């Protein structure tokens, strides 16, 4: 009787230790993180004169600066879209709605990263009309008026593409839709850092895109757990 108990107890112990040894999926997923910086001298951003649209000029105590090259402390680069361009299985489009706003005659956010097929809503929080004109070439180009108080415009982008957006009424307005093929992406903030979480072990290509500095890619292998930092350095010219 005792032997049987010991045997079953041993089995239970072995089973328990085996179960404990199998890691949960979250433990096996890796994170690719890093910082984007520049060398050289970036162009100076210039103040935007919104005198032609008094209702927008009134919203800014000091003039808004152009945004095509925004840098931060330690030569960091803001508004860089970092994403997995190869190695990840195609991601189904999320149901979560991405939002883009026209406010103070600016696009908020300046760069909106979203997935191909993800629903997008574009609003107008200003007292003036804007026209939203995404200059798509892979997707279809369209152009719609958004008067103040109108409901948000709904759109979807079928194919991955970096789409420049403009308003023809207010020519200083520039923004981008970064339509990506993957759910693993980040847009750097003022500190230039990014973090791509939840990557199963494998070989990946990480791509960094900046609207002025261009594109760079690196191949990274995720073995499980965190990986060393992956940094991108763009060469900046003052023009």
């Amino acid at each position, binding site marked *: 009787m005792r032997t049987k108990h010991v045997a079953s107890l041993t089995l239970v112990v072995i089973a328990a230790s085996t179960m404990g040894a199998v890691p949960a999926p979250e433990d096996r997923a890796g994170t690719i993180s890093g910082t984007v910086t520049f060398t050289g001298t970036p162009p100076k951003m210039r103040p935007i004169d919104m005198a*032609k649209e*008094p*209702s927008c000029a009134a919203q800014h105590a000091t003039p808004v600066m152009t945004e095509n090259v925004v840098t931060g402390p330690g030569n960091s680069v803001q508004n860089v879209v970092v994403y997995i361009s190869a190695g990840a299985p195609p991601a189904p489009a999320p149901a979560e709605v991405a939002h883009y706003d026209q406010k103070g005659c600016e696009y908020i956010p300046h760069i909106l990263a979203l997935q191909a097929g993800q629903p997008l809503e574009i609003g107008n929080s200003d*007292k*003036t*009309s804007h*026209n*939203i*004109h995404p*200059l798509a*070439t892979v997707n*279809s*180009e*369209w*152009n*719609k*008026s*958004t*008067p103040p108080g*109108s409901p948000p*415009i709904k759109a979807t982008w079928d194919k991955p593409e970096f789409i420049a957006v403009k308003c*023809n*009424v*207010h*020519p200083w307005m520039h923004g981008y839709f970064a339509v990506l093929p993957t759910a693993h992406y980040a847009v750097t903030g003022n500190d230039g850092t990014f973090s791509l979480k939840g990557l199963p072990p494998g070989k990946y290509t990480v791509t960094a895109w900046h609207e002025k500095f261009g594109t760079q890619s690196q191949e990274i292998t995720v073995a499980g757990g965190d990986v060393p930092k992956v940094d991108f350095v763009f060469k900046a010219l003052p023009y």
Partner: protein
Amino acid sequence: MKTRNAPAVLVSGLGLMLMLSGLAPLSAQEALVGGVHGTAAAGKEQYRRYCLGCHGQAGDGNGENAQWIEPKPRDFTTATFKCRSTPTGTLPTDDDLYHSVTRGFVNTNMPPWAPLTRQTRVDLVAYIKSFSTRWKTQGAGTPIAVPAETPATMESILHGRELFQKMECWKCHGPAGHGDGPSASALLDSKDNPIRPYNFSTGSRFKCGETNADIYRIFMTGVDGTPMPSFADNLQPEEAWDLVHFLRTLQPLQTPEATAWHAWLPAHEGELKPIGPDQGGQ
């Protein structure tokens, strides 16, 4: 015809009949306009003769004449077209392309090709579509519904004037429609070429037509590839006709709308709020 080709002829004839009866879908290398069936293969030779000099061998608008003309010839590879009966961002129908080729584009170097036979023009439409793969993947958009025109009463015209103010048409087209609005001078088309808004005071035809229904379609589908957006999401169909009626009053033409407007104006001019900024919160 040699006898050995007879089966092929029979099959293609049957295919043609099926197509014309609407049972078989058109391929992207074909066009159908008013019962006339065109093919890209036939259009190619005609394109070489009539179109290539401006629109280029590759259909990208870079023909040898392009460097000297303004506005630039259409780039067919992007499949973005100004004059459509279909919503912004969608492809035009074969009829739309046929009308554009036939009518030409006023105030540009694109002449009316009406002197070419109908068959030639439909073949050209089929060939134009071969420059972009979008015709294979997307297909033409669905033409917008244009409801029956409402009467051009003073009430309609005055409401149209309010819409011209509220939709901020004047920001590009100017308060009197002279194409001199505050945003007009900085306008660029989608290829970054300078472009001016339509100037109603010239009374010229529009690039996309000349009737009231054409005006309706222009601002309800937008002029793709240019700064002119679509207002389809912002205007109800009846309101859209009001705007059409008001726009006619900006032109120096003897239209019923303009005649009624100019008869009404002297006694009532002082009642009108001026179009432009400083109107209710702008």
